């Protein structure tokens, strides 16, 4: 069930009506939300609802055992390790088993082994990377005494809550559990911002991301060797805009839907292509993941506590594993390695920049950073390493004239880029205007906006890019 569909719209209206009519009982309200979330998840594959529930119960149980062993550090640490290992085992089996076995098979073949290995076909549960990370962060936060233990209902709902279930943002227990403990209140401001975010996300996904994907990006990445240089260049820029409009649209809608149910989700994007360094980019792109990686991986690897060499190694390892988090593919590893290397180089440059050398002008920093990110996206999107190399090579050698890129697609790429240069808090300003208007006018305006988007969107709705992670 995808957000920008009528089926989801009807589902949401039903849940909205049910939860707010049960305002008197917070427990029943949460039970309704939990059952609705399972139904939402089961729409993809009912088998994995059990996995979702089991994962929630497991993390709740491990956290309770850590709390119960307060004062016994060794026991607390043992339960932490058990919790993290089980989470990683679940993630590893579903996400990396096939990749790992294929690598073993390649290795055996290269050593002369001629028989094929039996490799099970494992179906990847939607959103497993997100809810597993959420569960792990809860267990680690409990161990670090950074959050309070949650009830079973709150914990399972935290992991299952449908707005963030399949593609984030990764909402931590310390952010959402306190909100679950009381009946939420819906203010005009929250409602206006929620509706504005949903409408804006719909526009970005249904028009810009979908048009660019179907008319340009999918074709250029499908067979780069058959495309001309202008089409490949447009395809690369197009993908940068597509992935931003697609993923940030999902986040906007998730934040908006949660707001209409009375819950506040954290930020996940902040005009990322405006970054003037890669470090700055990671403060603006998929913020909930980058802060997760920082707090639970980078810091655990030593962070900045053991000198510059360890810091660079920690950065590199964090980004390599961050790349692998997206999926079992060498291309994601290369993408992570590229980001890790540049982050380390930036850090070394800041440390050893000769005195008297001025920092790069801001605009130059933005252009260089964007093109490093763009290079990374080519590996991220390409079907294989060879395909990525063919794509990059084709940009410089294919020549020819544009066959795929059209005036409107070019305009969409430009429009997608200009979103990054809108004044700060633009959406908040819109919401502040809306909240003081009469509901009937806002309703008519919203209806008109959705009507226009529906008239302009291409046929069908493609799944969000991050659903596969």
């Amino acid at each position: 069930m995808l957000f920008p569909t009528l089926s989801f719209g009807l589902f949401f209206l039903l849940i909205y009506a049910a939860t707010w009519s049960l305002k008197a009982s917070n427990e029943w309200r949460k039970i309704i939300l939990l059952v609705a979330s399972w139904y939402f998840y089961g729409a993809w594959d009912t088998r994995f609802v059990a996995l979702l529930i089991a994962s929630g119960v497991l993390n709740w149980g491990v956290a309770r055992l850590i709390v119960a062993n307060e004062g016994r550090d060794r026991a607390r640490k043992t339960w932490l390790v058990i919790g993290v290992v089980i989470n990683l085992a679940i993630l590893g089996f579903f996400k990396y088993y096939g990749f790992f076995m294929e690598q073993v098979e390649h290795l055996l073949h290269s050593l002369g082994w001629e028989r094929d290995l039996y490799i099970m076909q494992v179906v990847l549960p939607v959103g497993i990377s997100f809810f597993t990370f959420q569960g792990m962060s809860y267990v680690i936060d409990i161990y670090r005494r950074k959050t309070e233990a949650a009830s079973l209902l709150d914990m399972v709902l935290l992991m299952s809550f449908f707005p963030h279930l399949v593609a984030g943002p990764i909402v931590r227990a310390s952010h959402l559990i306190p909100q679950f403990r009381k009946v939420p209140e819906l203010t005009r401001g929250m409602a206006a911002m929620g509706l504005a975010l949903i409408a804006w996300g719909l526009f970005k996904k249904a028009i810009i991301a979908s048009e660019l994907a179907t008319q340009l990006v999918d074709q250029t990445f499908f067979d780069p060797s058959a495309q001309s240089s202008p089409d490949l260049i447009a395809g690369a820029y197009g993908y940068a805009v597509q992935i931003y409009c697609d993923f940030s649209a999902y986040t906007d809608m998730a934040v908006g839907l949660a707001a209409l149910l009375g819950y506040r989700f954290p930020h996940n994007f902040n005009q990322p292509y405006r970054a003037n360094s890669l470090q700055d980019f990671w403060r603006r792109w998929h913020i909930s993941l980058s802060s997760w990686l920082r707090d639970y991986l980078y810091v655990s690897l030593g962070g900045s506590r053991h000198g510059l060499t360890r810091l660079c190694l920690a950065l590199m390892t964090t980004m390599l594993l961050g790349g692998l988090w997206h999926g079992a593919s060498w291309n994601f590893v290369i993408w992570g390695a590229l980001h890790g290397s540049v982050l380390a180089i930036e850090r070394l440059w800041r440390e050893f920049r000769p005195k008297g050398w001025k920092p790069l002008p801001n605009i130059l920093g933005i252009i260089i950073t964007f093109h490093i990110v763009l290079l990374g996206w080519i590996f991220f999107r390409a079907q294989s390493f060879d395909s990525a190399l063919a794509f990059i090579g084709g940009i410089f050698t294919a020549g020819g004239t544009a066959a795929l890129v059209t005036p409107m697609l070019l305009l969409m790429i430009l429009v997608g880029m200009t979103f990054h240069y809108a004044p700060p808090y633009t959406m908040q300003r819109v919401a502040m205007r809306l909240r003081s208007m009469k509901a009937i006018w806002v309703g008519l305006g919203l209806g008109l906006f959705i009507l226009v988007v529906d008239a302009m969107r291409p046929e069908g709705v493609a799944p969000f890019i991050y659903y596969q992670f």
Partner: protein
Amino acid sequence: MARKTTTGTTGGKKPATRKRSAPKAAAPETLPLDLPAPAPSAPTPETATQEIETVPVETQPLPDSLGLTHTSSPVDLPEPAVPLPHDGLKWATTVMAVTALFLLVFNATALRGWAYELTPTDTNAKVVSASETWYDLTAGIGLNKPVDALHHWWRGNMNLRFPGQEAAAPDVRLDSDQPGG
């Protein structure tokens, strides 16, 4: 103990004391992935928890002329100068009801398309039949014309080509009377 974050909209100074013409850029939502080394005077963190807690909190911008500043969630808005009625739920419900009604009247095509995509069952056959009836009714009085005209205009623009490029393939949705088309 949770890591320090800023919440709410209060800053160190009152909004009225700030210049109105220069709202500052939004601060990053999180601390950098690449953590800065601790200041020389600060003790070197020994543990992961200490490191997270000793990382300096970034300077947050003061509220701009509208009171907008960095918050922990995008849905946190500053309090209005003139208090609004405490009727958020009623207001939001009315907005959604009006929107739904508006789309029901002017976008019966989408409803019909959705109905045809349902799994064929006896119950869903009734849904399809009802959506067809509703579509015929609204189309009969021309309520679907604005969205059709906009769709034709937009697809026409999408089919524009640079000089020398091959013409676009015909869009099946343009002249189609298929459900959902």
